[in-house]
């Protein structure tokens, strides 16, 4: 199956700092998405980003499908950004969403 690597696995930031999270894929993927899981376990969809760039407030995401990677940018980080960020894809449009192992982010005040 397709291998997905998320980096870094852990990240600690001071409030106000910027960061870039990355997902690399071993092959082409479909329907790439980014999720945030808050410290209480709730998972929220951030972006549906099969290609191109999208922005939502302080967050933006870019997927370069031809080079098999996606990036999530967090600017001016806040403590509420803490949690785990996952990229996920739908390998063959079979409704099986496959998740990366996640990046655990801690933003300190």
């Amino acid at each position, binding site marked *: 199956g397709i291998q997905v690597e998320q980096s870094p696995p852990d990240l600690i930031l001071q409030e106000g700092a910027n960061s870039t999270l990355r997902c690399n894929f071993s092959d082409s993927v479909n329907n790439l998405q980014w999720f945030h899981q808050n410290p209480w376990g709730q998972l929220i969809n951030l972006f549906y980003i099969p290609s191109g760039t999208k922005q939502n407030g302080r967050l933006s995401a870019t997927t370069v499908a031809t080079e098999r990677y996606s990036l999530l940018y967090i600017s001016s980080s806040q403590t509420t950004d803490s949690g785990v960020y996952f990229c996920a894809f739908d390998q063959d449009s079979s409704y*099986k969403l*496959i998740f990366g*192992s996640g990046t655990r982010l801690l933003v300190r005040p």
Partner: protein
Amino acid sequence: DVKVTQSSRYLVKRTGEKVFLECVQDMDHENMFWYRQDPGLGLRLIYFSYDVKMKEKGDIPEGYSVSREKKERFSLILESASTNQTSMYLCASRRQGNLYGYTFGSGTRLTVV
């Protein structure tokens, strides 16, 4: 506020017990999913259901079964709980054809002792 509700936030069961994890959604979604989450492994799909009474195995179905008798409810069953099934279990739902409209429950942390 639409939501996916998992019946228990924390659960402790003994090895060999039959365990039921319940998930209910109020959005009239056709598709429902059960994932387990373990550190360093992300979320892995156990089972999913296209619609009522329909089910399909995910990537790690061994030791689990599911039931979808009504559209709003998707149950995960551990036939004989084992310690390696200690994990966080997450339920999700999605409208048929909406590729990114996943709504997740807040999870059930199951400990098997």
